């Protein structure tokens, strides 16, 4: 994957380039681990407290009938305690939810710190975007929710989406709802338009020719299907280099704009688009929601022999 410069700027000045950010993230990994361990400790403490509160609640519930038998004064007090009990139980549930949430965030931080796969790098990048969005929105309390939401969405499985949905159900604030929508429709991968003034997209200049429209604001990730990889393996090494470079250069920006080299396909079972790289044709699909170009197949020019209705014919 191209690791072209990914600079982000704010109105307050230049932010570090993507590579600097990556090294910053790597350097800060021990700190993040420490923080994660600290959060885990705090989580354990909160859990213990929660269990203690639950025990106390149970005790109060047990003692209440006895107190009711004793004095009218205690009856009044008991009624008061009974009124308070649901509140305490609600608080307990809230603390439990918060604990689970903190555990989720801790897991995410540990995951990101521990692994170095492409997906983790993608998650790191998305986390950086989330940080920028939170900074621009002045909504730091949303940060953990956004990070977790982005993480689970990044795994792209039905289970992840369900987990995200459950997370959303736990958070009723309108602002979180907005963020959830942003994650689900993929716009989390691009900073909202009103943030363009302070956020520079990777690989583009600050005034990098960005025209109106979603397609023009964000670079696309390139994914290959297994079939496309197998197709690539038929080519010689220098041809593979030319093809992969050509795909990276021509499909990261505006892959759905028709040009001399990018043609729309008649409806078929494989792909909606075709890219020309010399005599090679690359069939691809584009998911504009999550900014991913998926290379389906790669084909070479047919020789001067073809089969017509099962009959071999030479041109």
């Amino acid at each position, binding site marked *: 994957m191209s*690791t072209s410069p990914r600079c982000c700027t704010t109105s307050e000045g230049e932010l570090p380039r993507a590579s600097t950010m990556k090294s910053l993230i790597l350097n800060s990994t021990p700190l993040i681990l420490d923080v994660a361990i600290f959060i885990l400790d705090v989580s354990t403490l909160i859990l213990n407290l929660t269990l203690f509160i639950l025990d106390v609640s149970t005790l109060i519930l047990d003692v209440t009938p006895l107190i009711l038998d004793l004095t009218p004064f205690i009856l009044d007090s008991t009624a008061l305690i009974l009124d308070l009990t649901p509140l305490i139980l609600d608080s307990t549930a809230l603390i439990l939810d918060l604990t689970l949430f903190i555990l989720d965030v801790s897991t995410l931080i540990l995951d990101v710190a521990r692994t170095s796969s*492409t997906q983790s790098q993608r998650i790191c990048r998305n986390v950086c975007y989330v940080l920028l969005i939170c900074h621009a929105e002045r909504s730091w309390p949303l940060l953990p929710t956004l990070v977790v939401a982005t993480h689970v969405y990044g795994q792209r499985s039905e289970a992840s989406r369900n987990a995200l949905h459950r997370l959303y159900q736990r958070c009723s604030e309108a602002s979180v709802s907005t963020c959830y929508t942003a994650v689900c429709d993929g716009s989390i991968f691009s900073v909202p338009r009103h943030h363009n003034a302070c956020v520079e997209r990777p690989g583009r200049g600050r005034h990098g020719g960005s025209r109106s429209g979603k397609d023009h604001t964000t670079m696309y*990730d390139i994914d290959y299907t297994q079939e496309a*990889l197998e197709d*690539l393996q038929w080519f010689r*090494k220098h041809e*593979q280099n030319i093809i*992969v470079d050509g795909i990276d250069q021509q499909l990261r920006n505006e892959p759905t704009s028709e040009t001399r080299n990018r043609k729309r396909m008649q409806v078929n079972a494989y792909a909606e688009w075709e890219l020309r790289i010399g005599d090679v044709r690359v069939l691809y699909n584009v998911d504009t929601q999550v900014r991913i170009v998926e290379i389906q197949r790669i*084909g070479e020019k047919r*020789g001067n022999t073809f089969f017509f209705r099962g009959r071999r014919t030479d041109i």
Partner: protein
Amino acid sequence: MITWNYRVFREDDGDYVIREVFYAEDDSIIGCTANAVEPFGRSIEELTTSIMDFQAALALPVLTLAEIPQPAMPPKKRANGRTLSSADVRTRLGLAAPSSDKKEKS
């Protein structure tokens, strides 16, 4: 691996155009470009070759869009199966990092 070539199409209005047609490994047609394509090249020599390729299409049977298989459902935006990132593909094939990276390092 799939292959492609230029083929002459007779359009519904009676016009003749040339499209790129794609073939599966078993030589069955899997699709074609939505619109007619044009000769092109980055040099006169390339343009000449391109025109010759177009000319070769004239020797092949004329197609109509009705002969192009139509799927019941349009292609999915993304495959359900596992995909590989561009970096993973480069690693698998033992290719160099993209040129932009080289420039950055230098």
